[in-house]
């Protein structure tokens, strides 16, 4: 049975289904139950944005509120994973990674390699990413390139409710540490989602739109901006292929390269900062592996090399827009060498 639900509900449903299926799945985080130890109702919040609301009533103590102490509880999730549980730890805003990153990149990510293949650390660390929420510099970042840089971590960033459910179920079943990035501006977005359980394999991009003139690659919120751009480009007779990466590590190189070999043009859209991000990574890979197919210079559309501003008027300029993506596509359609230099 399929019905329309939001990405927030889809994530809740994935957690519920996996907790029912596997008694080793536990969920922890700050206020994920809400109101623990307080006088009011139990399960008062279900997370600051209500993503885990109602799970405590179904699963009891397998949902654990934590002290406001990210290093301790993220590390505890990692340690519990190395000892046979499958913890899902909510980090609320992934910007908070700064205070607990050691437990992720020096511990969880390295156990398997450093211990000679004798450890498994099936932990999921999930939380919000992305701008557009008027939440300013420390609650709005797209830090995905920090995570994809680290061998041993897997990185997931869904763009819709269907993918969020299937990818989170896969993340919980996966035997490696997974950073699950939830764009806060997609939580309310609804689409058709089956009620039953299903897993979407990692490393399989989703081609959202077929086209032969240009390939647009993105993930998360900017996938939707890319689709808007593609819709406007049709008026000029340009058919864009839009690829939603879904998982950033592993990444589906085959689908990207196959598409560029057909279209000859590539625009990569990334909400992260412009240096050493997914866009530069993909541009370099295509430059190295499909140079002969390119009819124009690769274009990158990213956030600027600035922190995320608070003022709504500035933040709206910060996130790549459909217009900026459409302009980038037009640059790839100009004669070779005619592209203006784009400041990073």
């Amino acid at each position: 049975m399929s019905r329309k639900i939001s990405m927030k509900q889809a994530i809740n449903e994935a957690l519920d289904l996996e907790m029912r299926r596997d008694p080793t799945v536990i969920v922890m985080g700050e206020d994920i139950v809400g109101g623990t130890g307080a006088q009011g109702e139990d399960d008062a919040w279900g997370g600051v944005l209500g993503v885990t609301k109602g799970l405590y009533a179904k699963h009891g103590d397998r949902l654990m509120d934590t002290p406001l102490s990210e290093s301790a509880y993220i590390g505890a999730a990692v340690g519990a994973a190395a000892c046979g549980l499958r913890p899902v730890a909510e980090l609320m805003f992934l910007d908070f990674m700064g205070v607990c990153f050691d437990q992720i990149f020096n511990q969880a990510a390295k156990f398997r390699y450093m211990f000679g293949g004798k450890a498994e650390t099936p932990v999921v660390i999930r939380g919000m990413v992305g701008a557009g929420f008027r939440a300013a510099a420390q609650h709005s970042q797209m830090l995905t390139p920090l995570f994809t840089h680290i061998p041993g971590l897997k990185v997931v960033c869904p763009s819709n409710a269907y993918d969020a459910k299937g990818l989170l179920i896969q993340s919980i079943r996966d035997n490696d540490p997974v950073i699950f990035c939830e764009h806060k501006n997609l939580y309310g977005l609804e689409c058709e989602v089956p009620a039953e359980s299903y897993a979407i394999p990692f490393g399989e991009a989703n081609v959202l739109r077929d086209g032969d003139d240009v390939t647009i690659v993105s993930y998360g919120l900017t996938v939707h901006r890319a689709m808007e751009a593609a819709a406007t480009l049709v008026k000029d007779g340009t058919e864009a292929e839009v690829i939603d990466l879904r998982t950033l590590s592993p990444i589906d190189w085959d689908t990207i390269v196959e598409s560029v070999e057909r279209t000859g043009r590539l625009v990569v859209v990334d909400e992260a900062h412009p240096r050493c991000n997914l866009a530069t990574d993909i541009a370099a890979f295509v430059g190295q592996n499909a140079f002969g197919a390119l009819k124009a210079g690769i274009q990158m559309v990213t956030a600027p090399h600035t922190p995320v501003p608070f003022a709504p008027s500035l933040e709206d300029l910060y996130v790549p827009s459909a217009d900026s993506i459409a302009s980038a596509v037009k640059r790839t359609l100009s004669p070779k060498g005619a592209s203006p230099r784009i400041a990073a």
Partner: protein
Amino acid sequence: MAQNPFPLGKDELLKAYRTMRTIREFEERLHVDFAKGDIPGFVHLYAGEEACATGIMMHLNDNDRIASTHRGHGHCIAKGVDVHAMMAEIYGRSTGACRGKGGSMHIADLSKGMMGANGILGAGAPLICGAALAAKVRGDRGVGITFVGDGASNQGTFLESLNLAAVWNLPVVFVVENNGYAESTAMEWAVSCDSYVDRATGFGMPGVTVDGTDFFAVYEAAGEIIRRARDGGGPALLECNMVRFYGHFEGDAQTYRAKGELEAIRASRDCLTILSERVVEAGVIGRDELQAIDREVNALIEDATRAAKAAPLPAPEDLLRDVYVAY
């Protein structure tokens, strides 16, 4: 034979002595071979601190888990990690505990409940909270022990973990191995409180300070708080005051020490001497029995060293192996 005045039977006493002697011999051998340039990287030796690891680990089984430090060889040996696999690991060989990919600072054997030495100071404390949580969820009566030095006792991870363990009532024992120095910096200067017992009290858990060179003192104090944790009584902190016979790492000239300090601690605070004198003087164990163990341990370490040096290096393709379970 005299009546045994100790809290352990003769076999257990011999086992404790053998463990401590094995650690000492392992470290002394590394001290010699490192100076010859035989060992890659750098090593941090546990010599002088053997009574602490041994007195605690005598209470544990393979179901209990420990998170160690950069100075982890003693914890590994006392927790039952194979000495041959450890030596091979330190030599970077494919027969090593981590197939040569971890080295001295990352020796682990999860099958023995040894969750790894750790190059990041204080990082073991949150991890052991997770191990203890797993034991609690499973209801298997397992406990978690995390070790920090006096240096890492100032890390936020350690202090946060004290709080988390207390709030979640986890079966964890936090062991502060206070050897007086964080690398070269004196504990008296770097730790703001006078006593770790005060620090434990501040986090709502009992704290105990013992002479970490006295095996029996460690054994008895650890036994009580480990039993308490196992029975659901919650976390506790154990401070062991001890001495480090070598530098922070091998090659450390130890210019920060007072004149005569090393000679003095070796003469009066050698935990192996203290243990052997007590059991021999009590008439429970004969000196010849200890000497027999010494000979066996010497042979073991010699064999482990010879085997490590002769063992194959990791294969070039191992560079890319085991980053993920599946990718």
